[in-house]
């Protein structure tokens, strides 16, 4: 139940809506328990139901979703494979010690600010430990798309948290010549 609530909370960003979604997810799952495929993870199935309920509630129509995600996927294809935050931080903190000093609330806030097409796979992978195949089934996209969205989502998150760390003085400011390429991580 905790996993579904956590997922709903990150999707909805509002505790009241997350509670409603969690309750409805379990009710729907129980009413449709004959549709569960044995051998698959129950958690994965519950996430699928929860996400569908959320999309319906927020009126993110399927077509709108397709347009947004087509743009996101096209964008993801152009992202460099280079780790720009790593490149920016490597002289001062090559092993990323500063990540340990970024407070949990800030990490969650940065996750909440990710565009949904990147937020969903990141939550399912990094927070809920689903495989690429399971994520692909929950979101209804090919595995390759999951991979590219995860890649891009993590890069955007790293950039946001790195900027926060610089702002808070956790990491010293970058020199202009090795600052993060804004093009690379912009929307």
């Amino acid at each position, binding site marked *: *139940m*905790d*996993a*579904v*609530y*956590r997922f709903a*909370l990150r999707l909805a960003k509002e505790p009241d809506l997350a*509670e409603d979604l*969690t*309750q409805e997810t*379990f*009710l729907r799952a*129980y*009413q449709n328990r004959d549709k569960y495929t044995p051998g698959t993870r*129950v*958690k994965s199935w*519950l996430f699928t139901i929860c996400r569908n309920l959320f999309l319906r509630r927020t009126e993110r129509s399927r077509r709108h979703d397709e347009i947004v995600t087509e743009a996101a996927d096209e964008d993801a294809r152009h992202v460099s*494979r*280079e*780790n720009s935050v*790593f490149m920016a*931080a*490597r002289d001062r903190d*090559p*092993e*990323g*010690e500063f*990540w*340990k000093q*970024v407070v*949990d*609330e800030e*990490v*969650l806030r940065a*996750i909440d600010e990710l565009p949904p097409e990147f937020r969903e796979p*990141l*939550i399912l*992978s*990094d*927070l809920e430990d689903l*495989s*690429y195949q399971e994520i692909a089934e929950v979101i209804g996209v090919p595995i390759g798309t999951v*991979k590219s969205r*995860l*890649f891009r989502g*993590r890069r955007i*998150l*790293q950039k946001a*948290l790195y900027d926060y760390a610089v702002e808070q003085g956790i990491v010293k400011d970058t020199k202009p010549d090795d600052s993060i390429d804004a093009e690379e991580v912009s929307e």
Partner: protein
Amino acid sequence: MKWVEELRRLLQRVGKEPPSTEPGGIACHEAAERLFEWLDNELESDMHGRVGIHLETCARCYPRLLFEKSFREAVERAAHDGSAPEDLRQRIMTSLESEGLTESEAGRAEDDEA
């Protein structure tokens, strides 16, 4: 050296990769490209092993591995304090019981969900 080039051409002609002196037999850029998949345990076992050897023994790539691991740990740490409120738990149980859920079914469902 001429004979090295000749050997490389011969191996390519028979469809085999020339031997590599890179850790794990793969280049740094390939290891970097597969870093996330390696951390996510999404590579086939042979490739997982080779990428792992490379990342853990290559002086250039090792800091990057530590950097990404540290980032991943920060995300995981932040996410693990999300328990469902007790009154929500109660509400869900009540609504499922009114649908006919029995206590033993509820226990089994909790186990399956994990």
